[in-house]
């Protein structure tokens, strides 16, 4: 599956558009790491646990989006965008969306 956040794919032509595909996931770190991150927050600076958590979660959201596209018979997704919203303390919703297309 080819994923890109540009509107076109360099070197390929898009035959048809198959609509918007989405993928989302809500993640929370386990309580131990949450507490450690909370302690780190006292002094500020980078919170590595959260960087990692969000990276994993985003990969999952991308994966789900790809599954959605695959079911529609697409072989590429263009114009991918990300969005994030916090639903509860310590949990975050990661959302990825794009346009599924068929290329030659």
């Amino acid at each position: 599956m080819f994923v890109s956040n540009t509107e076109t794919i360099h070197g390929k032509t898009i035959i048809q558009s198959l609509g918007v595909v989405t993928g989302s996931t809500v993640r929370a770190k386990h309580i131990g790491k949450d507490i450690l991150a909370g302690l780190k927050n006292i002094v500020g600076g980078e919170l590595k646990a959260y960087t990692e958590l969000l990276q994993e979660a985003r990969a999952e959201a991308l994966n789900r989006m790809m599954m959605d596209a695959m079911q529609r018979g697409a072989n590429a997704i263009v114009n991918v965008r990300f969005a994030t919203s916090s639903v509860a303390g310590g949990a975050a919703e990661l959302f990825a969306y794009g346009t599924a297309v068929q290329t030659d």
Partner: protein
Amino acid sequence: MLFSGMHQKSWFNKLKEREATFIAVNGKDNINNLKNPISSREIVCSELIMANVSMGVSWWQIFIGSIHQLFGGNITTYDRVLAYGRTEAFQRLREKALAKGWDAVVNVRLETATVMQKQRGDKKKGGAFEFLVYGTGIKYR
């Protein structure tokens, strides 16, 4: 806690240095937010790449920030954290692109989110910021 502000200044200077040396070594900045690459050379392959960083605001900075908020105006403590996070995220994307062998990254977008925010009644308390930078890595022939 009290000294984290001072540390932050030195971190930021280090980061700026890292950015400057990266651009000096490579001759040019390899990321841009244009839809299409400037150079008309043929592109072999491309792929989505992203980098993220999450930054916490220290309790001391929140305290100073709340004092600033009484009078309004520029909240310098928050300013510094956000500026650092953003620059760091961009720098990570540059390094990631170089490590993966992409010649350039086009259509770079930045997304900011608040994570770890606790809500008690009407008040929203503290929290950390997350910066996500993503773009399309391209390789020339």
